């Protein structure tokens, strides 16, 4: 076992246990803090894959924006402290089934993808991955349409939020 594999196992264990704590802890704010740790673990996994851009964006977007917004929303609600209700609802079996099916589908896709047998250093061989990503996002042969559609969607969401919050 190489040093990199040990580091990966530690990070993976940390991420999964943090994710478990998110759904099992009874304090909402603690759940949000554990979620931050889980998201940070994902960012660390991206670093191990030499995907620095994705790692940094993961931290900026998921920790800096989404998690902070969630904590903000939780603190403005009443159930800041302990939640004493039952943690499972009667249909947990179906949820577990969907979860397992999703995991199986993702695992199937990943093992079939051309990147499955490659090591981290092979993945970024060649040009600067940030430049390639940037060009792919605006190239008409690649992802320009999804990119622009996502921008329009975000704009619509913003206008909707302003409309909802507007003083009538």
């Amino acid at each position, binding site marked *: 076992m190489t*040093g990199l594999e040990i580091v990966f196992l530690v990070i993976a264990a940390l991420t999964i246990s943090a994710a478990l704590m998110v759904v099992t802890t009874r304090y909402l*704010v*603690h759940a949000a*803090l554990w979620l*931050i740790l889980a998201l940070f673990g994902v960012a660390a996994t991206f670093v191990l894959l030499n995907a*620095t*851009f994705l790692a*940094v*964006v993961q*931290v*900026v977007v998921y*920790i*800096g*924006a989404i*998690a*902070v917004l969630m*904590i*903000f929303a939780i*603190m403005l609600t009443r159930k800041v402290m302990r939640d004493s209700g039952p943690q499972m609802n009667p249909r947990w079996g179906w949820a577990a089934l969907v979860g397992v099916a999703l995991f199986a589908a993702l695992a199937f896709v990943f093992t079939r993808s051309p990147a499955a047998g490659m090591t981290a250093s092979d993945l970024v061989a060649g040009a*600067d991955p*940030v430049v390639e990503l940037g060009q792919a996002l605006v190239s008409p042969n690649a992802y320009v349409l999804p990119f622009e559609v996502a921008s329009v969607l975000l704009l619509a969401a913003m206008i909707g939020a302003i409309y909802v919050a507007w003083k009538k």
Partner: protein
Amino acid sequence: MGDPITLISQWFTSLLLGWGLAEGLVTVIRLFLGAVILATISMLTVVALIWVERKLAGRLQDRPGPNRAGPFGLLQPIADMIKIFTKEVLTPAHADKVTFHMAPVIFIASVLLIWVVVPFTGTVVGANLNVAVLYIVAVGAFGVVAVLMAGWSSNNKFALLGAFRAVAQMVSYEVPMVLALMVPVLLASSMGLNDIVNAQSIWFVVVAPLAALIFLITSMAEVGRAPFDLLEAESEIVAGYHTEYSGMAFGMFYVAEFLHHWAVGALLATLFLGGWRGPGAETWPVLGILYFYIKTFIGYFIITWIRLTLPRIRIDQMLAFNWKFLTPLVLVVLIFTAILDKVLETNGVGGWGYALAMLALNAAIGWATVLILKKIEPSRQRQRVEFPPRPVAMAPKSE
């Protein structure tokens, strides 16, 4: 000879390899030691900075500043340190203990992590990341999380209010800050800080003065010092998110704030003032460190000067200034810089011609902004609020 740090690092590596250690292990040890030294130097800088800041504050406010302990009061920070080390670290009743004690550690880590990507000179940089600019924004996110943790876990209304204010401020000022950071990235066509420094044969403060100004303002808000210190406004919410901290736990917030302030100076120097560049810095990298520190101090001095001159702004002013003024302005600057950059590039204009065209563009945008502000301002009437007169003191009602 001109590059002692690389020389020491090479000597150390060959020494460890000579002892028969594996090459991977040697790299790990070297990087770990480098990180320890970098963090220690950053922390020790703060000791000097506390004296500099207090002395500056004193002179700018027409008083001597610390002048009792040692020559020119130089030993004052040492005395302060001893005092703060010996104080008890209190935990408030019903506080969330683990979160409470973790918050200052994460806060100071978020500031120390900035120094990883700052190039001290051409050859001395912690990690030459290709996404360094975005990385700086990312580690700032941990600071926001730490403030929220501190404010919530203290079990104190004032701390929670301070945390809310802090997060509102840090999250909103991040928007124009990131957009302003995109201008040097655009000009250097790289997100690596060393590449940005190398691209500054003409300093970016000349090419993009508006972006530099907006970065200065927004990063002052990120640090949360006056005039943006409403997150710890003494007269309103005691001390904001660190109300309940005492002893070294408070000391860590204090040190992190100073270090963040200094780091903003370093980023300003690196992104806009040419970083370590200067006469002879390429052949003598050790000179680069000197230039870098001088430029960092210039940025640091400007921020301190503003902080000691301006009064605190209100929370509505803080938000309106960000969303109605800075964000639209920086969007205009970014779009026009990108267009002009492309136009000049296709016409083959480089060097000083390029810089002067960009400077003219910035001047035009600045002039237009002033004109628009002048047009808007007279039409906005301030609402006059009249309160019924009330006596200063009233006798308690007799039962």
